């Protein structure tokens, strides 16, 4: 087969040049990302890597992205389309645009502030270098600009339509003053913005070098060829997926004390070399800050599709040509003004779970059972010595069991690539003490391949009272198993103080007070299992007992394996008898065992006690 026609001949670019330029562009995007990672200020950047960099072609189509965060995969395409359409003819050399508005400008949520620098040669825009960073505070109802109880975007901080931060090279000081005046953390804002400016400059430098080397005309041709190459590779992958319609439904717990479940319904249609993803049937937008503007929906669709493919393809516009995404306007996955959206994080991860669940039916060997359902976001803030302190911390994460191996204990959700904050630095900087950070015994969803364990982290507020916002999920709707595995364990947040122990809703709709010496204890959801737990290798069960990832009672009750907790010795005979009696069981004992060993039985949580109950949809 002569495949030269597939990309090379059609685009008239030889494969050598294509590879070299593609490599160079990715290396520039990575360099931009490194500039931000190293020099930015906010913990969100350094620990959450909640930022991205991109290079775009003259039409604003993405040609390369820095490897940082899947949540942003869809952000640049939608934003750039608006920016080029609305401002394309007013751009001058030396301009840098700033914007964050999800409505009319294709952005994601207000804390995600984009900077875009058009790259000129010969008086013409040849491409763009852009960087988006989740800023620590852009105003709004609550410190951190992520108040879940916001009902309209107007309460969430400063909306910035595309404006020139630099006009022909001249910094707009007035605009800067306005931005800083609207942030609770102006110093961090400035530091992160500086990092973004530096990244855009690095991107411009890199692209200019390529324009000089190849000439702007040929460069454009090469970029077109990169898009075509990515499209070819993506279509080739999709052609190997079985045609069909694959549906999936999942929920988030809902908001506040008595929250209504919010429904996510997806229908993935594979037809030939194209894929359509339709969100019809998903809940309407809500009067809380968890709506996900369409850019985010694109991000998760891209992420799921990438995970379902066998190879790593260029992060460029060509790749996305295989995909159409439909989401009803006014739904929670495509909200309209004035929907609030700062806390879209919850929804992002549920979208990904639903999508991966659908793709598990298409490429079962590549998709894990559901994980913890997204990082728990915590922010604690107070005043000390006349200055406000604020920490935002993410508690992560576990992956579900897979077709040929266990899930992963202690890892970022696939939808992002977050890190954790060093406890020692956190304590050195803030009046807090972390009391515990580790895995929770008996929390991995049982299966032939076990789900990853839940993680717990607890914070003690030291001298003075502080305020807390927390955003978790997956207490009522547990992580979904695959192929006969069992669901993961619920997430739990409690405040322990002199007044006793108080269970918090998964998503409290207000800022909570933490008195001095109170302890916030959070346990993430445990990931779900893959395959029948009775088929789990006995040796793996025994190893988990020795490592205290499960206890001997759990081994016997759930896996039917009789293990000596001290030596790890397996009683083979008792095990086969036990496993025989457990065949075709319908009960679901692991959730109660988990609650009991974690000392949480008395909280009165409702957990399903049978598989049927766990599968029942509202």
């Amino acid at each position, binding site marked *: 087969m002569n495949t030269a026609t597939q990309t090379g001949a059609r685009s008239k670019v030889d494969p050598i040049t294509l590879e070299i330029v593609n490599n160079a562009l990715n290396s520039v995007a990575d360099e931009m990302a490194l500039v931000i990672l*190293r020099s*930015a200020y906010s913990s969100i950047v350094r620990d959450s890597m909640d930022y991205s960099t991109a290079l775009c072609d003259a039409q604003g189509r993405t040609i390369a992205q820095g490897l940082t965060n899947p949540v942003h995969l869809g952000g640049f395409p939608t934003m750039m389309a608006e920016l080029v359409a609305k401002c394309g003819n007013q751009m001058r050399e030396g301009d840098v645009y700033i914007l964050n508005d999800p409505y009319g400008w294709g952005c994601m949520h207000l804390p995600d502030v984009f900077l875009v620098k058009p790259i000129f040669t010969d008086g013409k825009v040849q491409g763009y270098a852009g960087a988006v960073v989740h800023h620590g505070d852009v105003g709004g109802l609550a410190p951190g600009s992520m108040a879940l109880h916001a009902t309209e975007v107007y309460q969430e901080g400063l909306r910035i339509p595309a404006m020139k931060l630099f006009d022909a090279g001249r910094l707009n000081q007035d605009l800067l003053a306005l931005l800083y005046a609207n942030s609770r953390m102006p110093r961090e804002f400035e530091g992160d913005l500086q990092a973004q400016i530096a990244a855009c400059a690095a991107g411009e430098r890199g692209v200019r070098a390529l324009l000089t080397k190849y000439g702007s005309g040929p460069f454009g041709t090469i970029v077109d060829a990169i898009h075509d*190459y990515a499209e070819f590779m993506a279509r080739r992958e999709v052609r190997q997926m079985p045609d069909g319609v694959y549906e999936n439904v999942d929920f988030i717990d809902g908001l506040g004390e008595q929250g209504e479940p919010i429904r996510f319904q997806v229908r993935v249609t594979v037809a030939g070399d194209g894929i359509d993803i339709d969100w019809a049937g998903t809940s309407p937008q809500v009067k809380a800050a968890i709506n996900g503007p369409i850019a985010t929906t694109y991000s998760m669709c891209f*992420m799921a599709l990438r*995970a379902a493919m066998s190879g790593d393809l260029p992060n460029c516009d060509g790749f996305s040509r295989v995909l159409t995404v439909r989401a009803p306007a006014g739904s929670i996955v495509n909200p309209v003004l004035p929907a609030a959206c700062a806390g879209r994080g919850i929804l992002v991860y549920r979208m990904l779970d639903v999508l991966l669940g659908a793709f598990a039916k298409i490429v079962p060997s590549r998709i894990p059972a559901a994980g913890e359902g997204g990082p728990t976001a915590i922010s604690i803030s107070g005043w000390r010595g006349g200055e406000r302190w604020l920490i935002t911390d993410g508690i992560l994460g576990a992956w579900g069991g897979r077709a040929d191996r266990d899930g*992963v204990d202690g890892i970022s959700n696939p939808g992002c690539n977050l890190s*954790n904050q060093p406890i020692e*630095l956190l304590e050195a900087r803030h009046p807090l003490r972390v009391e515990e950070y*580790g895995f929770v015994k008996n929390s991995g969803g049982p299966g032939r391949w076990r789900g990853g364990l839940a993680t717990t982290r607890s914070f003690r507020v030291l001298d003075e009272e502080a305020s807390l916002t927390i955003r978790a999920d997956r207490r009522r709707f547990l992580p979904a198993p695959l192929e006969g595995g069992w669901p993961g364990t619920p997430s739990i947040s409690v405040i322990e103080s002199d007044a006793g122990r108080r269970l918090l809703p998964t998503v409290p709709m207000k800022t909570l007070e933490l008195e001095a010496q109170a302890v916030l204890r959070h346990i993430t959801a445990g990931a779900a299992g893959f395959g029948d737990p009775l088929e789990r290798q006995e040796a793996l069960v025994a190893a988990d007992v020795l490592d205290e990832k499960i206890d001997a009672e759990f081994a016997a009750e759930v896996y039917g394996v009789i293990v000596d907790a001290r030596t790890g010795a397996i009683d083979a005979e008792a095990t086969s008898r036990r496993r025989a009696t457990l065949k075709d069981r319908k009960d679901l004992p692991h959730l109660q065992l988990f609650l009991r060993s974690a000392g949480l039985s008395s909280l009165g949580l409702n957990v399903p006690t049978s598989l049927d109950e766990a599968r029942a949809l509202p």
Partner: protein
Amino acid sequence: MAGQASYRVGVDIGGTFTDIVVATAGGELHSRKVSSTPDDYSRGMVEGVTGLLTQLGGSWRDVTELVHATTIATNTILEGKGAVTALVTTRGFRDVLEIGRLRRPNLYDLSYQKPAPLVPRRRRYEITERLGPRGEVVTALDDREIDAIVERLRAAQVEAVAISLLHSYANPDHEIRIRDRLAAELPATVFITASHDLLPEIREYERTSTTVVNAYVGPVVKRYLTLLQRRLQEAEMHGRLQIMQSNGGVISAESAIAKPASIIESGPAAGVIAAARAARLAGINDQITLDMGGTTAKAAMIEAGAPARTTEYEVGAGINISSKLVKGGGHAVKLPYIDVSEIGAGGGSIVRRDPGGLFHVGPDSAGSTPGPVCYDHGGTDVTLTDALVTLGYVNPAFIAGGEVLLKADKAREALRSTLAEPAGLDVLDAAYGIYQIAGASMMRAVKAVSTYRGRDPRDFTLFAFGGNGPLMALQIAELAEMRRVVIPPHPGVFSALGLLYSQTQHERIQTFYGLLQNIDIDQMQRRYQLLEQQVSGDLRRDGHEADEVRLQRHADLRYEGQAFELSVAVAPAKLDAALLAAVAAAFHEEHERTYGYRSLSNAVELVNIRVVGSTRVSAETGARTQSLQRRKLARGLNVASARLAYFGREHGLIETPVVDRIDLLGRELAGPLIVEEYDATCVVPPGWRVSLDELCNLTILAEAAK
């Protein structure tokens, strides 16, 4: 004559080959490459050195110093063959080690396996105690709990114990009490490391992981070095045995046994040290080094004569250039390293064509068996070497001076049928494309150490060595627009030379946290002095007295709230406000240089202080080597001839002169030209001129018109 001889010996043991260099008292250099003996690396090494010494008419008795680089620590981790190790840590935190920093190296691969922790959960023991960030005791250590842990350690028959408690960098008391009790109660063979001894630096995961790595490789390194010492004694060597560290300094075998985590990247560090010295002698201040062998290419930056350093490193992460951005592939070891960026592209790298028609070079390697197609050992995958042979760059009859014969026609045929034809390319154009793509991917390593640090490669000289470095150097220089390339003599064993040029170096760090403007200057001065005393003690134990030692102060700083520090030098004077202001100014400058901006509105935060102590280098050793080297080279082969080599569409196939380095004495030649030597081949394309400098380095300059 033999009785008066004295030799210094450098040995770099890699997985496949052991490189040996011997320097005579007169500065004459001799080298040899022998096969490594993985069952007992010390055997092959001692036999190899014995052979070379015998050839020189000498013996081990004449060896005054043996400097050694080894991959033993790295291999122990890669192969999972370390000690049965336990971890003792603060109650509530035994999973800090396994949770790590949670990131994965590949965003879209959901089959990812996290590297298994070096200490499984069952051997991670918690103890009731708690310190605060200023070292204050929040919960006192209950010594009786240590007894219970001793019992469990005995029952588990551990060979090594790591102790790492929260905030021990600020107050080591609890760790000391545990360490001393364990040392008293456990068999003397158990290797014990406490985190404050090794790395009293804030950040619990990195400190714990470093401590665990040290414990895990400790007994293995100890066994190996003890055996080596015995073999050397048997051979009647009375000189001192020195071990290369990842930071480019050497330490005694005894120090290496106590701190084995510091020798993880000793081989690559040696090459950079050799380059730094060679460049210094040649009057080059700023250079980027390229060390390319069969499977990887490594780059490092040397600025004002000093190699750039890093403390962000993961062992066992595999080769991954993007690890600079996305961590998670391995185990953190937060000790000082020469910043070497590695990419999986070398001579043996396999070239593939993906279904979309693009060529990719590496990271898979054909290794030495079956090896490239042209080796004719059954290899069918085309490698970079096959492309270079097809281009006429590599002489099929002159690998290792003619000891190995290559089948050029086989390489060309495989390249034609599997890559060129399907792509619709001429076979030479395809081979040249592979050469360019390999260069482009190595560019990423070059950029990682330069552009990513805010430096412009065009301001640097490219200094290339390793078996394949001189083949690729000019391609990379053209891509990076670097105008000067230097290839030292003996490029194939050049890394081992660095061992002979290294200084003894000890380094200590202490977290000293706070805003620079609020720092207690007297206390800071005392902490520096304490570190200096410790470092002097380390050097004294290695046999170096104060008068031959230089101590340097450094400070790790950042803007308040940033996550990463930059290290700047601190003048060796008594600290006062003016000196601190100078430190702050140096930080602003380095920040601007690295990241493109400085902030005057943000406070500067001090995180760590460091002291590096090293022996002074004697200046004249290099000067004496040069004439002798030149004489040695003058005796070398003269192989002047010519062959057809292809330099891309622009220049085409050219009858290219092939010369020996010695042929360049006293004259400058223009490319195209091939300089062929025993252990490497340098390809000079059209547009470059090559000459020999005083030290027999090939100096290759871009022609002015370029």
